[in-house]
């Protein structure tokens, strides 16, 4: 094989991966997810969550609030670090701050939906449940380990956490509709996948187009590869047009709507609708079938339009669009490059390497997954196609989850920023715990995949946690006791 054909093959692999991703996965899950991320960022006031994270909040409220607050507040890196510093220095303290820092990236709406659609809902669910639990666990452990520092740091209270803003009903309905749109587009249940009507478009030649596409992007179903359908090609074309019209229509949308805004929004709606249809090309016509999905998607979009016009004021809608588009601009180009690169690299990796390293659910394999996640830094969402590649090359789902949890948590950059806020010792202790817990999460999930019962998994989880907390409690009590003995001692010395 000459070098040229080899290069062509690699590029074809990249293009194939890219096209397959854009056409098959991205649209019905990622487009709504971007809009949800935009809405969370633009429409939910920070105080709606931060008021549960003040200094006086009881632990039973502050830890869960920190964990779930990540879902709402951590969509943007602009928010995570300042809020982390704020909770640590002026709010509920080290524990909840760490919980927030850990859970935020793991339950990011974009990453979750993308993981769910591209790899499997089971792994997305495991990611949510385990990272919320372990996030709270790590927070508690850190708070206990450093309880002395935590008690002594800045006593000042500020009004920063005293806000009482709440979320209006209109906004809530709007968010629920967006989530409904996402669910309608991604859920595979028969109500949604059944056909309800059929239209034949009498245009010939689509079968030849499909053949041409198959030639351009050759694929091997046995390797888990997908080709590009006619529908996919149309959608990719539409996406490109949306990109252009959104550039003119959404870049400065916070200053007011223009003609391009309307054009790009209609195109987005059209694209989502087409993506929900079932399209079959034949020699004489293009057959379009209306699925339950199409109806649900259309209904959700009409509902959104109604609520936006009736209950949201103009500036809210504008900010929502601006934020959503900003996320697209920030994340999408990197994602495209990443997916392309994954397609190219895939050709180089010998499946045997992966299978030997992480083919079964051992502790070592999970550690390998975590180590890879820590030392490799990928932009937001790119970890997902990479994980999918590993999966198709034979990685076990357990180590895969360990990798997926640790990758967005820890990068050299985030470790440095974290240590500038809480100090080097605390930061490295945190890093160590994240590594331990990610390994544990992967191993537990892997064991469940391999057939361990849910109850057994849950029991192990609880027993491990309970044990750890009891030990830490005991240690910190002893520390405190010896500390107070010391102060008593020194007081006595002073008195004498």
């Amino acid at each position, binding site marked *: 094989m000459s070098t040229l054909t080899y290069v062509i093959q690699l590029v074809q692999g990249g293009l194939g991966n890219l096209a397959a991703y854009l056409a098959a996965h991205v649209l019905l899950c990622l487009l709504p997810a971007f809009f949800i991320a935009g809405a969370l960022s633009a429409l939910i006031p*920070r105080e709606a969550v931060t008021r549960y994270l003040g200094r006086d909040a009881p632990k039973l409220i502050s830890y869960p609030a920190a964990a779930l607050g990540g879902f709402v507040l951590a969509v943007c890196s*602009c928010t995570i670090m*300042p809020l982390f510093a704020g909770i640590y220095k002026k*709010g509920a303290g080290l524990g909840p701050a760490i919980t927030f820092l850990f859970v935020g990236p793991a339950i990011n709406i974009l990453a979750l939906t993308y993981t769910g659609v591209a790899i499997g809902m089971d792994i997305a669910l495991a990611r949510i449940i385990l990272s919320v639990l372990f996030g709270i666990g790590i927070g508690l452990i850190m708070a206990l380990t450093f309880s002395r520092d935590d008690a002594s740091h800045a006593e000042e209270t500020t009004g*920063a956490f005293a806000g009482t803003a709440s979320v209006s009903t209109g906004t809530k309905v709007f968010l629920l509709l967006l989530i409904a749109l996402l669910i309608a587009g991604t859920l595979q249940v028969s109500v949604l996948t059944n056909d309800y009507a059929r239209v034949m478009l009498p245009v010939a030649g689509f079968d030849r187009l499909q053949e041409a596409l198959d030639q351009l992007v050759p694929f091997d179903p046995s390797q888990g590869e997908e080709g590009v359908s006619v529908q996919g090609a149309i959608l990719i074309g539409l996406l490109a047009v949306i990109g252009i019209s959104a550039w003119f229509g959404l870049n400065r949308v916070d200053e007011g709507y223009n003609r391009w805004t309307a054009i790009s929004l209609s195109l987005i709606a059209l694209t989502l609708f087409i993506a929900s249809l079932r399209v079959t090309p034949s020699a004489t016509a293009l057959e379009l079938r209306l699925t339950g999905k199409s109806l649900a998607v259309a209904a959700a979009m009409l509902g959104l339009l109604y609520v936006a016009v009736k209950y949201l004021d103009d500036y809210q809608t504008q900010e929502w669009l601006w934020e959503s588009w900003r996320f697209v*601009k920030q994340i999408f180009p990197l994602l495209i490059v990443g997916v392309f690169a994954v397609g190219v690299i895939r050709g180089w990796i010998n499946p045997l390497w992966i299978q030997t390293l992480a083919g079964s659910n051992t502790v070592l394999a999970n550690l390998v997954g975590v180590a890879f996640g820590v030392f490799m830094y990928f932009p937001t969402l790119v970890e997902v196609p990479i994980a999918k590649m590993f999966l198709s090359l034979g990685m076990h789902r357990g180590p895969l989850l360990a990798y997926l949890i640790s990758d967005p948590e820890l990068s050299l950059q985030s470790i440095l*920023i974290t240590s500038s*806020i809480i100090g080097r010792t605390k930061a490295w202790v945190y890093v160590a715990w994240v590594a331990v817990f990610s390994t544990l999460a992967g191993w537990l999930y892997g064991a469940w995949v391999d057939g361990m019962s849910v109850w057994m998994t849950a029991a192990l989880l609880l027993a491990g946690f309970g044990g750890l907390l009891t030990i830490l409690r005991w240690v910190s009590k002893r520390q405190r006791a010896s500390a107070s003995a010391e102060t008593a001692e020194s007081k006595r010395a002073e008195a004498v």
Partner: protein
Amino acid sequence: MEIKVLGIGCPKCKRLEQIAREAASEAGVEATFTKVTQIKDIMAYPITGTPALVIGERVVSSGRIPQKQEVITWLTEAMTVS
């Protein structure tokens, strides 16, 4: 008058700065702009979210991007106070 934009350099902070500059020139206010990008310095202000806007050492908004009209109002208010 001193206007500070607090934020670690994300797109939102840049947009806020742009809006604040436009607002200042529209309101005819002479202002010096400072960008505060270090977490430590940002946390000196009573805020929980960036981007935040500080006019004459008073935090006028945080965690969101205000409308240009709002910024103009704050600027004129600050002018009449000083």
